[in-house]
């Protein structure tokens, strides 16, 4: 495993950027996704429409194209690096899926919770924030976890725009050493270090929630 020793800093840097991009995109997409989930359930028809269109658009087009759009088109007007373009694209793309997950979570919270809160004098926003959303997040924790795993995997898209992530560094090492086999195996292991434990934990959570139900 000379390859690993020689290129360890490179892999590690890539790993760092992958993590960084994933975490930023996660936080952003949670906020955006929750926002659009709420938009889809408020009484106002126009808000629902907007929420719905947003989700449908970003769910149904490839992440790669969104990434290119930011990297090549938007950056003409707003300066952004490959890393930023990729991370923003990742955030928007993932937020559509999170919106769907959170919306389903909200709908599965007993409607009595909202009614109880409204009758108790809380405003719609207060009831959402303090009562409905906390419960919705708990219910949808396993699927949110799976979205995060997808997000980490999808962050490999940064490789297409020089995003310095794990996949990008892997390609560079492969191009320099021609030892594609070992390189990609190492890259795979780095990804699995993040995704596999998460994935097992989510399976565990899912089972626990199912038993509780």
């Amino acid at each position, binding site marked *: 495993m000379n390859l690993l020793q020689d290129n360890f800093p490179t892999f590690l840097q890539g790993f760092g950027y992958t993590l960084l991009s994933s975490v930023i995109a996660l936080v952003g997409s949670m906020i955006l996704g929750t926002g659009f989930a709420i938009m889809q359930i408020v009484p106002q028809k126009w808000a629902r429409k907007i929420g719905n269109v947003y989700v449908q658009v970003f769910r149904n087009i490839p992440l*790669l194209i969104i990434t290119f759009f930011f990297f090549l088109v938007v950056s003409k007007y707003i300066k952004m690096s490959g890393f930023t373009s990729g991370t923003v694209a990742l955030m928007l793309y993932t937020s559509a899926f999170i919106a769907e997950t959170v919306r389903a979570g909200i709908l599965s919270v007993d409607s009595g919770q909202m009614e109880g809160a409204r009758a108790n004098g809380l405003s719609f926003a207060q009831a959402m924030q303090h009562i409905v959303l906390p419960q919705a997040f708990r219910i949808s924790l396993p699927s949110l976890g799976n979205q995060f795993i997808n997000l980490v995997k999808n962050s490999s898209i940064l490789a297409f725009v020089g995003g310095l992530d794990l996949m990008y560094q892997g390609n560079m090492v492969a191009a320099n050493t021609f030892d*594609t*086999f070992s390189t990609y195996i190492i890259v795979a292991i780095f*990804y699995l270090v993040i995704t596999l434990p998460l*994935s097992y934990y989510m399976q565990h959570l899912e089972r626990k929630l199912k038993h509780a139900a």
Partner: protein
Amino acid sequence: MVTLGIFSAFTPQNVLYLLGGLGITVGVSVISVILSLIFGSVVGIIQFERLPFFSKFVGTINNVIRNLPLLLIIFFVYFALPKIGIHLPIFWATVIAMSTFESAMLAEIVRGGLESVDIGQFEGARANGLSNMQTMIYIILPQAYKRMIPPIISQLISLVKDTSLALGIVLAEMTYRGQIVYAQNSTYIIPVLIAITLVYFLLNYGLSLIARWADHKLA
């Protein structure tokens, strides 16, 4: 400049060229869908059956594949497998990589679908004298699949979108061809990106409408 691009980017020959890419996108998708439905079902059932050792083993491999980026798997199949003597033409390398990854994703859906079937259905069938295999084929699978249609279609939508990743190994699918078109003239970039986006959207939105319809029909 942009408006100029809109008119000249879509010459008949560019449009035909992009449509050819769509053909490849659809081709890869359809073949991968069929393969991954078959393999995903088999692997999902193996995991569900809890066979001693074997199910755990298959499940672990499945989890590893499921938790890797598809892009990595594509690079691996096309660039790394030849190192151990497996040479695949680019189209088939893409199909194999996508089918491997999507099978793993579908296996998880199938396993979940099977687990959501009421245990009483098994017991009823077993007590009624049906064998394990018969119970699976005639009672459990039909019920599980009905429930799995919406998540499976979402996964298929992902699959269609993910074919774009094959541009990383220069498969001449639609996104790659889009790049080639705007390599001719950089004012084409916005109209071409929009056109491609629209095609993907229509393709996938169509699929998601089917999912919604199926969900409605089955509920």
